[in-house]
């Protein structure tokens, strides 16, 4: 049974923890707003890009001279997994759920006899994967020193991926990140980057496909210019989604922690009061029985 003083100390320490988690929750809420508006601001660009590319890709379909970034290099042996996570922890299951998805994917590929290479973006992803796949992590980068992720950072990652692809160090690239749905729901997602895949939701723009476009310089040149850029854009979008998801996950994790600390304080206070009362009663009994004995 802890003494009164112990209980008092514990209450004080839980209260201090609660203050910290509460503050972190508020900071996360503020950052979430910023991250969300950044993600929204980036949406028109990537949506438009996907629109144009899927149109161009359709016209290139089945052609021999289709760019390798679009059609792939015909092989399916070496897979590159790009795992984008946060730089910090204390955000609930955010990092571990992305890492888990990547790990399952990697195991599946290994079981099929494929080769796996991993490129981690963000410190936490590296930490989570280095035990099992340490030798397979070929590249890592983190943006700890960067306050706000900009297109420049994504471009660095995108260019590196393309460089590796041209060196022939992998055949298929898949990007892992967390899609931001809401504060309480972030969905770890895998997206294939190379060969380029496009969401099937383009059925609606069949009408505009009929328009005969004029291309300057040429269709192939535009596609050749756009595809590498598209990779950077997709990485950028993933990083922004991740940033918003991270703050969302942290917010709800810290909210839970704050509530949990509150419950703990209530419980501790209750047993503190009980013990105090018990002690008073005991002292009274001692005094009374002492007086009776006289």
């Amino acid at each position, binding site marked *: 049974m802890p003494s009164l003083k112990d209980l008092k100390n514990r209450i004080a320490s839980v209260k201090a923890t609660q203050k910290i988690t509460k503050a972190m929750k508020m900071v996360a809420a503020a950052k979430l707003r910023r991250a969300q508006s950044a993600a929204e601001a980036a949406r028109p660009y990537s949506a438009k890009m996907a629109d144009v590319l899927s149109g161009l890709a359709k016209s290139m379909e089945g052609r021999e001279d289709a760019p390798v970034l679009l059609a792939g290099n015909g092989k399916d042996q070496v897979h590159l997994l790009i795992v984008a996570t946060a730089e910090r922890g204390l955000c609930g299951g955010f990092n571990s759920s992305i890492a888990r998805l990547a790990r399952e994917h990697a195991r599946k590929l290994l079981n099929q006899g494929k080769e796996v290479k991993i490129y981690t973006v963000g410190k936490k992803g590296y930490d989570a994967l280095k035990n099992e796949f340490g030798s397979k992590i070929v590249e890592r980068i983190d943006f700890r020193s960067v306050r706000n992720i900009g297109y420049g950072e994504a471009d660095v990652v995108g260019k590196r991926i393309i460089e590796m692809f041209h060196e022939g160090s992998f055949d298929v690239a898949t990007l892992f990140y967390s899609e931001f749905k809401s504060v309480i729901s972030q969905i770890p997602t895998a997206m294939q980057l190379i060969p380029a895949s496009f969401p099937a939701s383009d059925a609606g723009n069949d009408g505009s496909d009929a328009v005969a476009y004029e291309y300057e310089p040429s269709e192939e*040149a535009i596609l050749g210019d*756009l595809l590498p850029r598209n990779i950077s854009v997709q990485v950028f979008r993933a990083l922004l989604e991740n940033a918003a998801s991270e703050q969302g996950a942290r917010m709800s994790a810290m909210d839970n922690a704050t509530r949990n600390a509150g419950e703990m304080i209530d419980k501790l206070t209750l047993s503190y009061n009980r013990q105090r009362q018990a002690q008073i009663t005991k002292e009274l009994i001692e005094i009374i029985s002492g007086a009776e004995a006289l």
Partner: protein
Amino acid sequence: MATPFSFELVSPEKQLVTGEALDVTVPGTEGYFQVLANHAPLMSTIKPGVVEVTMSDNSSHKYVVFGGFADVSPAGCTILAESATHVDDLNRAELERRIQEAREDINDAKDEHAKMRAEDYLHQLTTLQGAILPA
């Protein structure tokens, strides 16, 4: 009176302009071109240069863009720029940094083709610098 058409200028980071424009001048890779209403559908990559827009309220704006592409369709004109800034907000140091980088790229170029592309890019940048310097 020119007919207005919808115009958008977006960069990966944000949407810079969206609205009705009367006339847009775009720095296409093969040369500057002007877009008016009902322009034939055209898709073109763009080089570093200045996009000039006259909006439907007759205000005119200039934006500096670094690469990207333009999509002119019957629905309107969209420019996806890799990086775009209003001419008044342009950071001259930033431009010089890019020029410096382009120079380094030329030195680092591994083959003739890459070197030619880097030289092209540098040329486009210096032209751009010359064009906006007096402003």
